[in-house]
């Protein structure tokens, strides 16, 4: 159900051309440097593969491959379940040239946020929330007042 979907959006400016950033986010051996530990995936629309996080992992499906501007995939950590809307996380990258540089934007959306192998629950307590989203900002303020 879309009513319980979450969506998180982040972006960064990279001092490299779009083509270089594209290779960094789409080549499986590069993906292992910033995302999953193990990536067994062909980068073409509809391709199915696997991503591993430590001793856990699950099936991945490539959705969009539009070099060098759009790349998206779905993954689901439950073994045996094919990633589809409603049971998986969608990760969408958009690359936009800004002069010689590249604005890389990522949108993660999906359900089941809190039962994922790449979430390090131990870290919750150590990391403080920092500003994204009006709701959480205000919330953090209220909670701090009460503490």
């Amino acid at each position, binding site marked *: 159900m879309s*009513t*319980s*979907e*979450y969506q*998180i959006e*982040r*972006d*960064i400016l*990279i*001092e*490299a*051309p779009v083509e*270089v*950033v594209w*290779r*960094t*986010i789409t080549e499986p051996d*590069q993906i292992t*440097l*910033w*995302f999953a530990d193990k990536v067994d995936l062909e980068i073409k629309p509809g391709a199915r593969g696997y991503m591993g996080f430590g001793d856990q992992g699950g099936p991945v499906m490539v959705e969009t491959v539009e070099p060098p501007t759009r790349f998206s995939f779905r993954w689901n950590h439950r073994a045996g379940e094919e990633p589809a809307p409603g049971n998986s996380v969608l990760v969408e990258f958009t690359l936009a040239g800004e002069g010689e540089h*590249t604005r*890389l934007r*990522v949108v*993660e959306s999906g*359900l*089941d*946020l*809190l*039962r994922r192998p*790449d*979430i*390090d*629950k131990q*870290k*919750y307590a150590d*990391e403080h*929330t*920092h500003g*994204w*989203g009006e*709701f*959480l900002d*205000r*919330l*953090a303020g*209220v*909670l701090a007042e*009460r503490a």
Partner: protein
Amino acid sequence: METEPDDELWAAIADPSRRRVLDLLVQRGEASASWLAGQVPFTRQAVSKHLVVLEEAGLVGRRKQGREVLYRVDADRLDQASRAMADVAQRWDRRLATIKRLAEAAHAQAQRPT
């Protein structure tokens, strides 16, 4: 006792109109369903439904005062949920920083005259 955030909690907080109800409760401290219904563009029935979901997720508690039922936010539980969201955002910040480092290094290498 260790309490972990769960799907129910997540679903409860991810819905925008439920967040609106939560927001109002956070600001007000304690409120009845009819007071809440007066503040939002949806019906009293919708507010009651949202309160049920929020209560089941442990985000909201209730007490009776005379003939009224008053609702209030469970701050610890809400804090847990907001941390989970912030954690996802932070992990992407770290990943994007790594991508930036990798791409800039690859670019610098390609620029180097041979």
